[in-house]
């Protein structure tokens, strides 16, 4: 029996592991390490209506326990994805989550319509990209806007719609609830925290865009807290991410309430990271004598493992 087998968003997954959008390209880069079909699902790079070149200048910087990026949604555009990347991914047998970022509501709707007739398994609304001028994070900081976009997208697609939220807000719960009330099938928590770094030898910001998104182990406590907090207030499943680099990190997220987890920066720290997490989870469940991974979802809200386990 596969203990990691998960049914979520009406999709059957061989395991509840995906990757953070933007850290795995379109699934082609890690093939020499393992077959992406070993993942529960592949979440592809965030896409826009038209191709984008992204930001200029330095796009990354390492920080204590984490990294900053300001890639700025460089991508070939949704049409190229549907035509060139998606068929191949599906032929290989992957479950594919499409991450999209519109510059306004209309674009979100238009992209959703394009995807509706594609083989994509799920649509993830990126209402939280910190690195673009239009839309992005601005959408994600208003519960009203998040609700509106979610509703409009749900109106044009039958595919499951998951809303990816930014942690850079005062009250993530109200925004999560707005998404749920407007029909979201799930939530992805979290996108990157806003941060910056300065090169003290020159006195200038390191990133071309000055600010960037902070990801990696450093943000894990913040991500975990948001998953825990939101889990208390919504019924829809949560894809938890933020600093997950090993199975113990992943277990924390499941226990906090995530039904799936995503590996982002962890892929850079170890290309085999998602697979090692998969094996680590299986080992943990065996040792603890737990039958299915789904049993531990939200465990930290229910008093933890009982003595027998």
């Amino acid at each position, binding site marked *: 029996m596969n203990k990691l087998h998960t049914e979520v968003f009406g999709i059957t997954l061989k395991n509840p592991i995906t990757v953070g959008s933007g850290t795995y390209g379109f699934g082609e*880069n890690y093939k020499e390490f393992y077959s992406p079909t070993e993942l529960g699902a592949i979440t592809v790079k965030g896409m826009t209506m038209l191709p984008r070149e*992204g930001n*200029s200048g330095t796009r990354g910087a390492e920080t204590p326990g984490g990294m900053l990026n300001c*890639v700025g949604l*460089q991508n070939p555009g949704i049409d190229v994805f549907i035509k060139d990347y998606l068929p191949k991914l599906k032929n290989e047998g992957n479950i594919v989550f499409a991450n999209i970022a519109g510059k306004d509501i209309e674009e979100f709707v238009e992209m959703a319509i394009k995807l509706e007739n594609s083989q994509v398994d799920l649509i993830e609304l990126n209402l939280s990209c910190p690195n673009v001028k239009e839309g992005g994070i601005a959408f994600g900081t208003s519960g009203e806007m998040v609700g509106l976009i979610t509703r409009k997208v749900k109106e044009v697609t039958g595919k499951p719609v998951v809303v990816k939220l930014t942690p850079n807000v005062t009250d993530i719960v109200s925004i999560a609830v707005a998404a749920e009330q407007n029909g979201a099938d799930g939530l992805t928590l979290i996108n990157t925290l806003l941060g910056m770094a300065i090169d003290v030898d020159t006195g200038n910001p390191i990133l071309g865009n000055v600010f960037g998104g902070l990801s990696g182990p450093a943000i894990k406590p913040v991500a975990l807290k948001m998953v825990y907090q939101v889990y208390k207030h919504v019924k829809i499943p949560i894809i938890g991410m933020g600093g997950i680099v090993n199975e113990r990190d992943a277990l924390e997220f499941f226990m906090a309430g995530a039904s799936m987890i995503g590996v982002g*920066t962890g892929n*850079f*720290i170890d*290309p085999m990271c998602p697979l090692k997490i998969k094996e680590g989870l299986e080992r943990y469940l065996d040792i603890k004598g737990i039958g299915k991974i789904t049993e531990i979802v939200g465990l930290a809200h229910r008093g933890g493992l009982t003595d027998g386990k």
Partner: protein
Amino acid sequence: MELKGLVKSNEFLTSQRDVFQLRIELNREFEFKPGQFINVYCPNKVLPRPISIADKEGNIITLLVRIVGEGTDFLSKTKIGDRVKVIGPLGKGFNTSHGMDKKVAIIGGGIGVAPLLGLRKANFKDAKYYLGFNSEGILVEEFKKVYPTTITYLTEDTTVLEAFEESLKTEVYNFVYACGPEGMLKKLQDILQKNKIPGELSVEKKMACGVGGCLICTCETTKGKKRVCKEGPVFDSQEVLFSE
């Protein structure tokens, strides 16, 4: 390709102990082109460090590394028998066929000589090394062993460019391979353009994944943004658009 490495030797190459040569035995054989690199995982840092494969004999690769921060400092302290995790070979190396039957200049600045070391085995019909260092040469004897005409300048990187440019008055080069600091490559690009000499440059950018997935390492080129880790680090000499 994920590789397990075992440190075979580690020694400083400069009297200031800022550049060291690290030889690592890997658990698998692989083909390699000069200019390609590996990602070395340093346990004290989040992201791996990209380092050129300077040389390779059987399963043993040679790295030439300058200490500039905590990652390279960690590597400088590894001892014989220590284990290091590595992925590679990564990126696109120099295309040696371009210079095969031509007169070739190979120009390096500072630690930028690392990816050029492997080119000495390329059997170019006629090649000359121009190497510039800020103060102390790195493995100059190694270069001279194969190419006794190797010229080195122990001053600014630019001096070696001046020497190269000066040489163009009397000599004809048909192809150039180069690696060095960005400022040097930019000047070289101008010289090559002015003199209509084709070539290839190896450039550096901050990286994260090293395998093309994160888009951190892009550089501007005449054909739009390209990933240094995937489409590079070696580019056609006129393709890269250096910033001011």
